[in-house]
């Protein structure tokens, strides 16, 4: 009955590879997000999608691309992986965007990516 699920939980890969992390929410929410928690424990928002439209794109390299096949899914594709991409990536969803700042976000369990 998981509200926000991510696969895989762990991902170990070589530099230069292309990988994807999947995210699905069964809450009927309109907005989904990707966050990155780096080795220094900072949590940074990367993308958000509202009704299939990219709303926020913080200064994220274009090697990262979110793909939303439908409202319930927001997948993260990463091309040409670099060592610095090693981090925990969290997917989240909420009914509305940050315009309603108290909007509760539901987070997935995270995907730990290790680039060797």
């Amino acid at each position: 009955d998981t509200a926000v699920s991510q696969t895989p939980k762990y991902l170990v890969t070589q530099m230069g590879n292309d990988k994807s992390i999947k995210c699905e929410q069964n809450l009927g929410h309109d907005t989904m997000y990707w966050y990155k928690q780096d080795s220094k424990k900072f949590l940074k928002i990367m993308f958000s999608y509202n009704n299939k439209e990219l709303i926020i794109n913080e200064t994220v390299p274009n090697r990262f691309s979110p793909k939303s096949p439908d409202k319930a899914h927001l997948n993260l594709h990463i091309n040409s992986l670099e060592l610095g991409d090693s981090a925990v990536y969290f997917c989240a969803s909420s009914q509305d965007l940050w315009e309603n700042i108290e909007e509760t976000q539901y987070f997935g369990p995270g995907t730990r990516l290790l680039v060797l």
Partner: protein
Amino acid sequence: DQQVKQNSPSLSVQEGRISILNCDYTNSMFDYFLWYKKYPAEGPTFLISISSIKDKNEDGRFTVFLNKSAKHLSLHIVPSQPGDSAVYFCAAYQGGSEKLVFGKGMKLTVNP
């Protein structure tokens, strides 16, 4: 350039006592502040927030205080319970820029 700082990496308190988690920020344009709680192997969950027009917001055992002149906010948990043991993230939001910045997090351990 850390705009949101949680300078203490960890805090340990006894059950029933008060837990005080601190957060400092540098950007005076931040106008909304949030606290998130994160258990191991789970994503962060929203806990409590405060607008910059207020200096206090209370929700049950959780109270957030904001001191704008000092660019400082704190989260008080009274009484602390073992289930409160988690990592707590402070976050700051700048309206209009859609920017949300998180601190590094602070690990709280509440001992029975």
